[in-house]
């Protein structure tokens, strides 16, 4: 356990889902623009929630386990990365299920 504990968990999430891109051909990372356009608003919305929660003392981070680098409104950079990594994992999982089962998701080409 160290300053990189939180980051290691995030790295684990990325590593644990990366194989989907290749083996299930999710093409999530390949659709980079769409991915960025999705993640940016999510990061903004959840950073606001995080900033409020930190200010109100809803939650707090053990200084031993986070990098110590903080961004706006005392939000640790670890948290910002969380709001980037988890959405990527969620989309990969979603597109992986779609790849494996061919179920409709609502963004298919309409004839």
């Amino acid at each position, binding site marked *: *356990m160290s300053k990189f*504990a*939180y980051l290691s*968990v995030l790295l*684990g*999430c990325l590593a*644990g889902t990366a194989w989907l891109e*290749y*083996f*299930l*051909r*999710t*093409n*999530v990372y*390949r*659709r980079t*623009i*769409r*991915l960025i*356009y*999705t*993640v940016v*608003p*999510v990061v903004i*919305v*959840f950073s606001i*929630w995080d900033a*409020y*929660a930190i200010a109100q*003392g*809803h*939650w*707090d*981070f*053990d200084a031993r*386990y*986070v990098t110590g680098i903080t961004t706006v409104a005392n939000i640790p950079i670890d948290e910002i990365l969380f*709001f980037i990594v*988890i*959405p990527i*994992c*969620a*989309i990969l*999982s*979603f*597109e*992986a*299920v*779609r*790849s*494996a*089962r*061919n*179920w*409709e*998701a*609502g*963004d*298919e*080409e309409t004839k």
Partner: protein
Amino acid sequence: MTYTQLAIIGVLVVIALDLYVFKTCLLKRKVFWVSYSIVIFFQLITNGILTGFGIVEYDGAAIIGSSTPENSPPTFIGDGRLVFAPIEDLMFGFCLVVLTLIIWISLGRKGVQREPKSGPPRKSVHRFLGIK
């Protein structure tokens, strides 16, 4: 507002966004519920690490359960917690995942990189996935 209140409002907001604002209707789709079941399983593990080791600590005044103890892990299951994490975190995670997918699908609908679409899986994983 407490974390409990915010989490409940958050869940209601993303439900409304999905069904009535963006009309993505993910919550009515099998593909969402199956992928969300997978996500929630891994969320319990990763969030269990973050909260069980006290990397993230909570104030009892903001959640249903009590504060994260100083020098010991919180309750594993019970006291408003599931796998060390406050149940509010499950709602927070739901909001995070659903909002993400609403935006992702909306962009696809608008034609933003609908292609290359997902799949098909590589032959090497067909047996693993139960595909004939």
